[in-house]
């Protein structure tokens, strides 16, 4: 029984929480579970995967793998999967993991199901659950042939420690020429500047619907009146309108305030995963079909430029 392999992401000496969650889930599903980690100086970290359910950890430790770029990882993983005959390879979704998973699927001619929010073994076969069409329908997805590749939506499974131990095995690193063409000139570290939004009880968040960066002042006034913090979408952070430290979503913060007021935000899945645990979600959007209305508690169809200033006034008046 070759079993499954879980791709673990490493950043600054730690495993990504999402990938450890997937490892814990794989262990819970049963069978032999191995993990794979690639990077430079990651060997020391490897045994830790045992605590989250891996019986064995394959390590590709090489300076050529220092930058978190996908293609060299595809080379190493493809060779490993072919050599060991894994029937399943699981990934927790992230920018890096998604690119590794899709590259691996192409290299191996394998099936990749993405954005899964659950995995189960039904009559001996793996079945994934995927919300589709803005989460308005859930589909059960399967694989034809092996290996089965799966990308799990971020934040789906919590890392659970099962207290085991893992053996560690080094794997050979042989890279394709095209895989080493891209180089990282600057590497991200979590930026510490900017306000912390994770502790706030109330968050007023803004997206591209604000129209221009100066309009964030409307949200700052409302947030002040409500005693809350201001957050933003990737679209406006990427555009330089608001600091990255305030971004909510897959590649930003995960928040769960009592009240989340979304203004001019379409409600993309990658935004939703960062704020869906909020107590009450109020969404103001001028598009009656905005996806955010699928999961808001209060869906307000209208122009935020009219509604937000009035809202601030009314909240202030209640003092």
């Amino acid at each position, binding site marked *: 029984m070759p079993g499954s392999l879980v791709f673990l992401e490493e950043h600054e000496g730690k495993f*990504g929480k999402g990938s450890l969650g997937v490892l814990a889930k794989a262990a819970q599903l049963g069978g032999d579970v191995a993990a794979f980690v690639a990077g430079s100086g990651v060997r020391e970290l490897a045994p830790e995967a045992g605590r989250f359910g891996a019986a064995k950890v394959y390590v590709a430790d090489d300076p050529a793998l220092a930058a978190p*770029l*996908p*293609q060299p990882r595809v080379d190493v993983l493809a060779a490993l999967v072919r050599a060991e005959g894994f029937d399943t390879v699981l990934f927790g979704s992230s*920018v890096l993991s*998604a*690119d*590794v*998973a*899709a*590259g691996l*699927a*192409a290299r191996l*001619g*394998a*099936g*990749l199901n*993405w*954005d899964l929010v659950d995995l189960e073994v039904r009559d001996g076969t793996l079945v994934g659950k995927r919300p589709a*069409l803005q989460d*308005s*329908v*859930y*589909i*059960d*997805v399967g*694989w*034809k*042939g092996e290996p089965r590749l799966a*990308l799990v939506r971020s934040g789906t499974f919590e890392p659970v420690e099962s207290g085991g131990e893992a053996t560690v095995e080094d794997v050979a690193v042989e890279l394709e020429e095209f*895989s080493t*063409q*891209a*180089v*990282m*000139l600057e590497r*991200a*570290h979590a*930026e510490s500047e900017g306000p912390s939004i994770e502790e706030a009880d109330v968050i007023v968040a803004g997206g591209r619907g604000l129209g221009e960066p100066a309009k964030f002042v409307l949200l700052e006034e409302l947030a002040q009146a*409500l005693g809350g913090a201001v957050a933003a979408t*990737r*679209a406006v*952070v*990427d*555009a330089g309108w608001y600091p*990255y430290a305030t971004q909510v979503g897959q*590649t930003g913060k995960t928040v769960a305030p*009592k009240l989340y007021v979304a203004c001019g935000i379409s409600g993309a*899945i990658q935004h939703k995963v960062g704020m869906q645990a909020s107590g009450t979600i109020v969404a103001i959007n001028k*598009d009656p*079909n905005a996806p955010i*209305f699928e999961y808001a508690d*209060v*869906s*307000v*169809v*209208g122009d935020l430029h*009219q*509604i937000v200033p009035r809202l601030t006034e009314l*909240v202030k008046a209640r003092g």
Partner: protein
Amino acid sequence: MKLAVCVKEVPEASARTRIDPGTLRLDRSGAAALNPFDAHALEEALRIKEGSGEGNVVAIMVAPARAADSLRKALAIGADRAVHVSDDALAGSDLVATARVLAKAVEREGPDLVLLGQQGADSDGAVLWSALADLLRLPVVSQAASVELGDGKVTVKRQTEYGYDVIETPLPAVVAVSDAINEPRYPSLKGIMGAKKKPFETLSAADLGLAADDVGEPGARTEVLALADPPSRGEGLRIEDDGSAAERIVDYLAERKLI
């Protein structure tokens, strides 16, 4: 500079899309449009072309025959040529099967830079570029918030879970852009008229030398097994603003002691 932009057609945002319970495939019979995320990739290609004062942009789409209008829209916006790969044999393709088709179509063009959007509005896959690049054996960078060309290479700034990276790669390369990279232009009347005269090629799977087993349903390695309703959630409150929206929000929040 030869630029290729991969574009897909998606159901119109206002259309109530559904999955056909019979075929378990996306019901594409409703109104459709050019994937809005791909308008950003096309815009970036046009800016690169305009910035360098030379070059041409080809828009490539793998889609059924009825999607031709969406591809023509790419011409109206500014692409110089269009390549439509359309074949009944492609129905039921999954990620890798689609990437195989696209790879053949891109290879035929031999572009310096291949641009893609950040995701299909219908699939939320956000993964195709990496499969495509692997088949093309080209370097790939995704989630580009900015793209700079110079000296036979491209420099990309992009966001990950940890902040911003800067990545550089020689051309030819595959780059998928974020929807924050630019503000896409709309087609002008002149553009729409001119589009009719631009080269529009339609290719079959056989034209690209694709084996029937590698594409469509036979080539797919994933399948949809069943449909289910999403977990139910409480009825939300919907307010169509008639000037009193702010008052009604405040009432709602006050009732629940949120203010």
